């Protein structure tokens, strides 16, 4: 067990060293080698997305549309549903007030139904809580939670985290009930880092004062961006006069608009995305935080986070690594299987069945007793009260 992980670490170190070397740019030859084929690469092997709409109610339609717009985009760029955790605090599509039942549109022309017919919401309604978001991120899950609701990332995963809702200075409101603070998020990411649950994270927030949400981050390899600065509101982009509410927020709208021209093979960098969005009329100043992120933005491709475009590493068939990886996978599966089995149905049933027999006689005997003797006991009580009083008065 120790040896494989040591080897793993070594591999990572080598990779990191390589990158560090390149950025130091002393050795022209090395740099050339690494940039020979294409721009600097991310070393991730899989992509995940966590998309959260934290506000409910009909008039927050646009937040649902924001999250669903992102969902559509990451899915279009190749991240499968199994790798997307979509949290929607309300179901705008089935709201009674929706003139177009079963659909969510982000534009008044209503060309594109974001709800479509192939959508998988992992957490919905009152399941969208601060606790659940942090559990998803950190992976501290009850064994009974199905795999589809888990963020099964590893140290080679690139994660796109998108939050939308009503926010304030260093917090984001969940369902008018609770808030997640910038510190909570920062600590959750640090825990992910320590548990080796990510390679790189792109954090994006479209809320009021969104940039304050990532102000407390301190873990490495996180690139964070938000729609508005401290004290600024994020505005909605457009209304649909048939739906009767604002249908999308400005920041998300322009991000998605840009993303429409991106496909899986696109080489556009995040710098392109950010600088394009910054030129749009938002009513707020979007911010980007790069100090924790190791790579230059101009050389970080959008598809590193938005698409399922990963490096494929063909490792030499050295028996050790191969078997160790398999072992890990197997053991993981085995353990999760066991986890799943733990609270399996028969077990539960037996525990429930075992309770009543021990309980029922006690209750029935008590109730029988009360039925038979209740009145008598009351009379005895009153009698003894009277006795007490008579005795005290006579003494």
């Amino acid at each position, binding site marked *: 067990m120790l040896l494989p992980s040591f080897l793993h670490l070594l591999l990572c170190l080598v990779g990191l060293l390589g990158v560090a070397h390149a950025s130091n740019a002393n050795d022209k030859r090395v740099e050339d080698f690494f940039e020979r084929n294409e721009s600097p690469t991310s070393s991730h092997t899989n992509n995940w997305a966590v998309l959260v709409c934290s506000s409910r109610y009909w008039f927050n339609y646009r937040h649902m549309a924001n999250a669903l717009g992102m969902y559509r985009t990451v899915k279009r760029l190749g991240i499968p549903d199994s790798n997307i955790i979509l949290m929607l605090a309300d179901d705008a599509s089935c709201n009674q007030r929706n003139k177009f039942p079963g659909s969510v549109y982000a534009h008044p022309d209503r060309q594109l139904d974001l709800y479509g017919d192939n959508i998988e919401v992992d957490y919905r309604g009152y399941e969208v809580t601060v606790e659940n978001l942090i559990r998803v991120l950190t992976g501290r899950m009850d064994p009974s939670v199905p795999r589809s609701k888990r963020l099964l990332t590893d140290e080679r995963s690139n994660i796109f985290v998108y939050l939308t809702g009503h926010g304030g200075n260093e917090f984001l409101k969940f369902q008018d009930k609770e808030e997640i603070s910038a510190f909570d998020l920062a600590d959750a990411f640090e825990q992910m880092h320590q548990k080796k649950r990510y390679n790189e994270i792109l954090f994006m927030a479209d809320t009021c004062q969104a940039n304050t949400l990532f102000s407390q981050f301190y873990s490495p390899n996180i690139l964070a961006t938000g729609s508005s600065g401290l004290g600024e509101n994020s505005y909605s982009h457009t209304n649909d*006069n048939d739906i*009767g509410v604002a249908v999308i927020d400005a920041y998300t709208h322009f991000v998605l608009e840009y993303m429409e021209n991106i496909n899986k093979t696109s080489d556009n960098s995040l710098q392109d995305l950010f600088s394009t969005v910054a030129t749009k009329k938002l009513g707020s100043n979007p911010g980007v935080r790069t100090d924790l992120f190791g790579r230059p933005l101009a050389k970080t491709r959008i598809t590193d986070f938005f698409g399922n475009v990963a490096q494929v590493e063909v490792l030499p068939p050295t028996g050790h690594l191969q078997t160790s990886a398999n072992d890990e996978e197997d053991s993981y599966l085995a353990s999760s299987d066991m986890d799943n089995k733990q609270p399996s149905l028969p077990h539960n049933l037996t525990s429930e069945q075992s309770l009543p027999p021990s309980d029922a006689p006690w209750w029935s005997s008590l109730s029988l007793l009360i039925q038979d003797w209740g009145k008598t006991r009351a009379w005895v009580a009153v009698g003894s009260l009277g006795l007490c009083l008579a005795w005290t008065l006579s003494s």
Partner: protein
Amino acid sequence: MEHKQPSLLTRLKHKIRGSGDVNTKRVQRRLALKRTLTDKLPKIIFCLFATGYLWMLLIPFPHLGRTTYIDENALQPSQVNTYWDWADVHIADQYLGLLEQIRDGNYTSKERAEWLNMEFLKLGLTSSTQSYTFLSPVTGVNGTNAYAILPSARHSGTEAMVISASWLSRVDEGAGTVNIRGVSFVIALARFLKRYSYWAKDIIFVVSDGYLDGMQAWLGAYHGIQQKGLEREPLQHSSGVIWTALNIDYPGHSFSNLGIFFEGINGRLPNQDLINSLERIARYTAGVPVTLYDHIDPRENSLVNVEYAWVPRFLYSNPIIKAYIIRARNILRQLKYQATGRGSGVHGLFHQHRIDAITIFGLPAQGPHGFHAIGKTVESTLRTMNNLLERLHASFFFYIMAERGWFLKIGHYLPSAILISVAMMFQGLRKWVDAGWIEVDGTEKSDPSRVWVRRTRPVLPVLAIMILTHMSGLVLFVSLSSTWLSTNTYWLAYPFLVLFAAGIYVLFSKQTFARPNEAPLSLTLKALNLCFASTVISIIAVLNFSLSASLAIILGIPLSVSSSKGSTLSRLVRYLTYTYLSIGWRLHAPALAKQLLWNWHVLGVWLAPFVCIVYVPIVMQAGISCIID
């Protein structure tokens, strides 16, 4: 040298407290304060009165208050396309034609309601009628309501909103003008709204009979409230909790403005968000100018830019004074509706069941608006009301609407009445102190100066008098509202009231309760009377500011100046003046008195019992304090 210098703090202390015994100083300080307060009290009371009355005059001032705004996020007013179009207007016109035949065809209200019921049934709505009879000792009424329910397509029907129209219009307070376009619009609207499936609440259409009585019977039945003197059928169909209601009043051929009426029963006001939403929707979606009541702003419409004869021209041309006059007119209207407690229309009845409701009134004119504009307004307002997730609660419930889009918060107007009430309280407390002390010649030979000695106050007899007056107020109320006195023999009011006044006079004037070393009854009675009146004014202020302000105006000065000094004749004159102030309304406005009683019996407006059991006795107490020793 330095350490002998006392510290700054010590010196300051000395300066403030002086030297010497601390307790003596404290007693002296306290006495000085008391003396100053006692000396200055008349001035303080005067200032309070003056500020209070001046504040009342300032309420219409254009710089007081602020513009209205929408507070509830969920409402999203004026953000939808409306689909009410000319075809729907045509249908409304067809219904209008049918209704005109019914109006002119001498139908009974039962037949009329049946016809409406049939029309609703033809539309496929759940519909029924409800007959009712009010057995009021003043004037009994009966009629039949028709109502229909459009269930929400995709919701459980636990919430509802109401579109209503009374058969009689508010134009002449239900004297006979038929709200004919209002009713035909409601049917056409029902037909129109049925097409859409996005209603999150049931929509109830009510065409109530009469002016106020029909809706009172319908609402009572809907909420399962038993009312004395009302015989009504139960409702066959019911829906969920009603949150909001719009009452349509459109009697004329066309209208120039949409007037908003909002005051409810017993002075309750609807949440301001409802008024503000409608105002914005009418303005932006339908393009109809909105106004308060049926007042057309002379600044917007030159046709009605009439000048008041009593306002000099140069004053009226001043924009501030013009705005003041316009606002004062609106505020006085609100004062009238609130203080009488009757509300300003059918919507007011909803308020007693915690439903926020307003009346949209099409101001009769030669144009330019009609069914098209009112349809667009109501459709869009319904979409806004449909968006509600909880009862309206965010905006204001306590306000004065000065003009369209401008209001005064509670803090801007409430202090006026409270200041007067405080002045009365101070005056009462002063009399209380006066009653407790008397200045007599010094007993000691060596000290001939006059000294103050305490005397007892006859509290129990005074309380007995006060309770007695309130009891006689109750008797007055019961007898006034008895069928015999209120319906048949109106002329009996005069001898009755003379008897009432004389009885009280005889009861108290000849009595001498005065005992040595006891304060005169009149002084103690005046003290407690002022304190009680002040309490009543300040407490009513939160419930119904207009009533409280009226009481402050009527009672403030008069109660403060009552006194038992002077000749018997002048005391008698004063007594009669107070008697006139207390029950004179019965002689001058028998019709008003009759209506107040009707309001109490049919609508549950508590002004009539309040006047008889609280107001009349309070003024009578002041009168008694003039004739008693």
